[in-house]
């Protein structure tokens, strides 16, 4: 959200265990309904293959959050 305030579109990436807290913070900071890319929890013990899958998942969600749909 700090990025958004300096004019840079931003996507926060978090695991499913942290969504509630992030939504509260966004509301507290004046951005109700701010969206995040949510990936499965946890990442600390994920294998490299699992991390790649999570990265793809995050990017797929981010496509809709960061880019204007053509047309």
């Amino acid at each position, binding site marked *: 959200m700090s*990025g958004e305030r300096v004019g840079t579109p931003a*996507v926060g990436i978090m695991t499913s265990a942290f969504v509630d807290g992030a939504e509260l913070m966004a509301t507290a900071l004046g951005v109700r309904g701010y969206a995040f890319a949510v990936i499965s929890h946890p990442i600390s013990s994920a294998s490299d293959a699992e991390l790649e899958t999570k990265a793809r998942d995050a990017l797929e969600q981010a496509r809709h959050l960061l880019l204007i749909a053509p047309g």
Partner: protein
Amino acid sequence: MVTVLDPSFGEDADAFDLPDRPVSLVGATVGIISNGKANTRPFFAHLARLLREEWGVAEVVLRTKSNYSAPAERSLIDEAAHWAVMFAGVGD
């Protein structure tokens, strides 16, 4: 009847409009601000590679916060102002 006072804060920050989104990131510089928690390095390495290979991003800049429990330093936010878009994470 008794009159009691509301103990809550009750006032959220002034709302602001989100900046405009780009149509494409081909040729753009994209930034990542990592909180540096366990496994974020390989996670963001995959993210950066996918951005370059599949989104046509020209450059991915990776920065790591000095304290994952605190907001990003002012210097990182100032640098973020020069990126087309950015990613931040991972809340875990």
